[in-house]
């Protein structure tokens, strides 16, 4: 394993786009509010098509929404 995780800025982008709700974003790309919540929390990795649809809604590139970054070290948050 690469030790990297898929992170996203969906929550931030929703806020910057008129405080769009999860349900609104879900309606735009054809998924449920719960799926958007799961994606935001990093508990579900969307398909490539859904990822492109999300980026399209915000009018940004895919790498402005999703990033592939090193996972934080265990216990780092306690330091």
């Amino acid at each position, binding site marked *: 394993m690469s030790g990297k995780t898929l992170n996203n800025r969906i929550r931030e982008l929703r806020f910057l786009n008129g405080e769009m709700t999860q349900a609104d974003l879900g309606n735009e790309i*054809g*998924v*449920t509010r*719960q*799926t958007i*919540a*799961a994606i935001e929390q990093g*508990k*579900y990795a*969307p*398909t490539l098509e*859904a990822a492109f649809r999300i980026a399209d809604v915000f009018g940004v590139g895919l790498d402005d929404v999703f990033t592939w970054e090193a996972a934080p070290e265990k216990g780092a948050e306690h330091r």
Partner: protein
Amino acid sequence: MPYREKIVWLSLFAIAVAFVPYFTYVAMMPAASEGLPSLRQLILYAVATGVQVVILLGGRAWLALRSPGDVRIPPDERDRAIRQKSVQTAYFVLIGGTILAGVVMPFYSSGWEIVNTALFMIVLAEVVNYSIAAFSYRRQA
């Protein structure tokens, strides 16, 4: 909780109510000595299946009345991914049950013992299917 997760929990509930009593009774009062066909076993199975159908139909109708909009929403990619994973695992349980009841058991058993083993493995596969789906919905919630 999304509509499809509610359906998963409803299905697990229906199985628990209908088939836990059935298999408990069957385990305590085996019908092997009665030969085929055993009217008692047939009636028991019909009652268990009937209870399951009534709970599923009633539950789905109740959920549809409570949130009619949710029923019309088609499954999205996450629903499909969860279903694919749960069905895939349940398939192996079903294959194992088929081998046990259809290939192994006929060498040493017969009648309702084989039938009930096959039924048990079908129900077990369903339990595995819905349990994995419920766990996946909770883990990704």
